[in-house]
């Protein structure tokens, strides 16, 4: 396992910056996601305009992986339709499970492509996928 491939510049920045970590006023959707075994606990908030995710944010505690993964996801889905967002979730989960490996396909995942190798750290996979599962719960 190469720590460099996990704790990348991007993860560090997302983890530290917290630009998506805030409360939305009157969100349309609010969903809590948690990993009881490791204590990661996030609340995802969405503002919808029809079918479009107009704004999104999160609050809560967790490790760098879960915080960065959540932040990167939010960057990705803002302005997308709910269906497009759900497609992203499937693509992301497919990448984690190594079912999707085509570079072209994965590029659509933006920053979160850096989590591609998290399956080399099985104990941390749960951290990486937490927010994506939470989004799925929230909108489907």
């Amino acid at each position, binding site marked *: 396992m190469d*720590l460099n491939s996990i704790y990348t510049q991007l993860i560090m*920045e997302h983890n530290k910056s917290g630009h998506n970590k805030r409360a939305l006023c009157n969100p349309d959707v609010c969903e809590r996601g948690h990993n009881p075994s*490791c*204590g990661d606990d996030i609340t995802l908030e969405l503002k919808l305009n029809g079918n479009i995710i107009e704004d999104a944010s999160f609050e809560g505690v967790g490790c760098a992986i879960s915080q960065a993964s959540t932040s990167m996801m939010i960057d990705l889905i803002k302005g997308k339709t709910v269906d497009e967002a759900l497609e992203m979730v499937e693509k992301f989960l497919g990448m984690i499970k190594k079912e999707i490996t085509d570079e072209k396909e994965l590029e659509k995942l933006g920053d979160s492509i850096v989590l591609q190798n998290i399956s080399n750290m099985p104990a*941390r996979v749960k951290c990486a996928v937490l927010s994506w599962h939470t989004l799925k719960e929230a909108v489907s």
Partner: protein
Amino acid sequence: MLNFDPEKLKKDFPIFNQEINGRPLIYLDNGATTQKPNQVINEIRRYNETSHGNPHRGAHQLSIRATEEYDNAKEKVKSFINAKSIEEIIFTRNTTESLNLIAYSYGMEFIKENDEIVIAISEHHSNIIPWQKVAKDKNAILKYMYLDEEGRIPIDEIESKITSKTKLVSIAHMSNVLGTIHPIREIIERAHELGAVVVVDGAQSTPHIKVDVQDLNADFYVFSGHKMLAPMGIGVLYGKKELLENMPPFLTGGDMIEYVYEQDATFAPLPFKFEAGTQNVEGAIGLGAAIDYLQSVGLNEIEKYEKFLVEYALNKILDIPYVNIQGPKDLSMRGGIISFTIDDVHPHDISTILDSYGVAVRAGHHCAQPLMRYLELPATARASFYLYNTKEDIDQFIEGIKNVRKWLGYGS
């Protein structure tokens, strides 16, 4: 001075003949489970290759040998904790099952409506949830003793919580998060004065300090083999004979009976009454071998050595400004466990990063969520030591700690 050489002793443990992520393995997760010396591994193999049979059930050689070896292992446990007789030693699966046995059998039989059960806020989930169940089923009350800022139970907390309404107190001898050695003598004395029985969760103490159940006057004392160099799947329940005799069986089935009729059964004498079905003989034999090993080093020596390691580690850690330590500062009140956090870094990241340095520590709630909530921490990282750890292990551990923040982009 020490009467053993940790470097030499480490060679008994084959797990250390390997590298983790290109570095020598530094195993500091002994609070979770410990590694096995060749002496234990070989005993299990010897048993499997020469003496395996179903004990207490046959008149043929292998069954006789298995019976003798099983009973012999029980004798070793008896001496190890200084029980009065092997009737007081019940083999279980682990500490968790031992505690469940007491809760289901003693608790469900003797705890009545409005009775009080007292535990500490620092208990392991295995010493909480069984009592929640008893309290709920019996309409009894589950009360908590809270800790001071150094993770100790204050005397006035003991006195205000343990009262004449208390029927049972269950308390860890040593906290698996804070390393605190609780004042169980005082707790036992107080409880006995008021007519309550005391269960001591010895999961973290038995492997590391000399335990004498008669001297402590504990009513029940429980621990797990896998935290003291022995195999998984074997645990111990010690109980005073008078108490065990009056308790109904818990698990029922083969070998714990006297006569079985269609609608009724009578039960075997102690300790068999509580050992239903085919027992883990190889686990018991492994535990016996582990006890031999620990005694050849000496529990007092082990305790002394671990104190040295903790002191050595704490001195170095306290020099690092962004590392925070939980638990007592006073070394005489703590065992070989250090729970810590690092500013701005989640404990899971600490554990993953240390792992890349070959250093195994745990991160999380350590099966003690009520304590975490009480400490207002989502999680901690925990290093826990044992006799095979060395000064160099600690140096490597500290080296790793110093690198953690860098990986997350904080200037050290």
